[in-house]
């Protein structure tokens, strides 16, 4: 019994360590993977006020941000998105697995940085896009998804990942 206990006291922390190291290393791989541009999936969704969303409204350079009223990290990135929407880029929300009343209340309470938000309660479009959770952000250039950020959007991610892509697109056109 005592032998087992002694063994566990050492081995359990080692297992926990290995597990976290693995999670960290896998995350690193994903972050540096090259992103392949692909077409924005077709969809039939309404916005949060109930009007159908036209595919053309996604033309040009747009940021699609996946959010939900239940998502705490969305609140964290919210001020930064507001700042972006004021002078840098038009942001379209993808309201993910949420309830429209709650989502609208959330926007009323915290402010609305989005041009409009697509309402995707079942996560259909999100599934086609490859969303794993909220928040996530996709960079769209002429209806093509060219960049993807998982988790909180912030100044450094914006500057190191999305901004170079936008500048490249602007130069080539």
């Amino acid at each position, binding site marked *: 019994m*005592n032998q087992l*206990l*002694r*063994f566990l*006291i*050492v081995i359990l*922390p*080692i297992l*926990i*360590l290995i*597990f*976290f*190291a*693995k*999670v*960290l*290393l*896998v*995350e*690193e791989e994903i*972050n540096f993977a090259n992103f392949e541009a692909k077409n924005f999936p077709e969809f039939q969704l309404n916005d949060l006020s109930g009007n159908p969303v036209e595919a053309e409204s996604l033309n040009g350079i747009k940021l699609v941000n996946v959010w939900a009223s239940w998502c*705490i*990290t969305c*609140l*964290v990135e919210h*001020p930064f998105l*507001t*700042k972006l929407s*004021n002078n840098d880029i038009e942001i379209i929300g993808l309201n993910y697995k949420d309830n429209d009343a709650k989502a609208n*209340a959330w*926007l*009323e*309470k*915290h*402010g*609305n940085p989005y041009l409009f938000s697509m309402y995707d309660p079942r996560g259909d479009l999100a599934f086609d896009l490859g969303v*794993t*959770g909220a928040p996530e952000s996709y960079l769209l250039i002429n209806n093509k998804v060219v960049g993807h950020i998982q*988790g*909180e959007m912030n100044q*450094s*991610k914006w500057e190191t990942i999305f901004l170079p892509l936008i500048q490249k697109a602007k130069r080539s056109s």
Partner: protein
Amino acid sequence: MIGEISHFLSLSAVVLLSLVLIFNLFFSLNKFHPNQLILSVRLFNQACWLVFISFGMYVYLAISDDFSIAYIASHSNSQLPIFYKVTSIWSAHEGSMFLWIVFLTAWSILFINSLDKDHPLKKLTLLMLSLIILGFLLFLLLTSNPFERILPFGVIEGADINPVLQDPALAIHPPMLYLGYVGFVISFSFISAYLLNGDFELQWEKDIKNWSFVAWIFLTIGIALGSWWAYYELGWGGYWFWDPVENVALMPWLAATAFMHSLFASSKSDVLKTWTMFLGILIFALSLFGAFIVRSGIIDSVHSFANDPERGLYLLGFSGLITLLALSIFAYRLPALNSSKLVVTGSKESFLSMNNILMVTSIFSIFLGVTYPLIIESISGEKISIGPPYYNTIFSPLILIAAVFIMISVDALWQRSMSLRVLFVTATAPTLLSLLSMFLIWRATAVFSILAYIGIFSGLLILFSYLFRTINNVFNKKYINKGSAVAHVGLGLLFFAVSMNSILSYEKNLNLAPGQSISVNESVQEFSFDDIRVLKASNHDVISAEISLMHDDREIFLNPQKRKYATRGQITSESAIHASILKDTYLTIGDQLDNGSWTFSLKINYFIKWIWFSAALMVLGMLLTIFKKKVL
């Protein structure tokens, strides 16, 4: 220039601490020389002072707006009052890590110099502390250097502190919390030193008792302040969210609470010693785990700093190293430590060991809640979240058991079984009274939730049992341990307040134009939106609404605000709160709608202030224990 000197001083501290370690590890193989320890202590003290001076200079840099330092440029601004220039230092990762290390150093230098010159554990404790400080200083300088310059030219104006953090609470919440977290480095190093040393006749409990008690006070205040800040200032509308970062602060708190109870038993009657040592190591290990979770960005949370795998790996590696070091020695010494004495069923020790088991179960449940989403994600790639329902379900049976044990164990005796008659006498009246009160609460509120009622019952059980003890104390002069009584009444109150809050509080979303008024419900008879105005403050614009309420036949005026900050363009919401003893009226203003009306969120929060009052009672109980003579 001052930046470079400050940077250089921190580097010098690294060199000195390395010297202490090299010097002792390589030269103590030869015969131990008495001057060796004196020299080590001197080197160590000097290293600590270098860290303090370096931090002092860094504070000066922040006050004098040196925006050529990258970290200060991105977190401060010349327009800020000096107070916020200083607090901006710990508003993000690099600076807060620096502060963390300064506190670590402060605790260490105080403890080392408080030990007798020839204390048998002094040398090993010193080495352990040097290793820990060295590891974190290297972490700071290698992966998150706060001294980095913007070259070749600095910026003219800083990017400003995040407005959410532009609040006096920022000045005290993180420092208190850090003081608590790192304070347990003392029990960690001292117990490791004791185990390494191998002389088990030595009494070690009293040397770290008060240090741990003080660290516990800081940790409790830090957590309570964070919760208070979220509710009153940040407008989150609640006091606890089971957010990963709140959880990683709660785990060391639970471990520390268990540790202190266990320490009480092991110093009184020579049992539970291994438990106590294990807990003493566990607290700091959990604090390190918390630092890792927050600073590696492995879990998305409201508190998370930058997402940086490199930092994460370093922190994980180093925290893992020292935790494993301590746990391996513990496992190695375990057979020699086991006391031959058995714990008598129904004795005070048996209840205290139950307490240890309950606390460790709680810690494990929280740990599982924090890591389970990660485990699932790494196995199946799916994202899941674990929220309040999980924790509420896990904790309500645990607190019920805890309450029952608190009620019956206070009258238990050391090393002797408790008689059934005493058990019956102590338990009957509080149980009946609690059941009766619960019934009355149910009649009055007409709300039923099994989990909340378990919480209410547990809280009342503790409160009533201490009520009877107080009566006994006053009229029959029966002994009562004041510190313990006050702290446990605080705990009972906490259970009661949290549960009552969960069944009674409600939220209403309203939509009004200026000049309109409506009736919300029987309690809030009238809600009038009198006026709205735009004001200008030094670094932000304010939209301020004037609201009057008829709430329970009393007129209340509230001014919820929205602020727009000039530098970052960020909008923050300032809730207006009217507090009475029983409940808070909490009002937040939302956005203006197209038709000119505004949205409001009205929350009625019951018993919310009691939550912080109960935390204050626990701290008071601990203070009474510290200042009482001869506790151990």
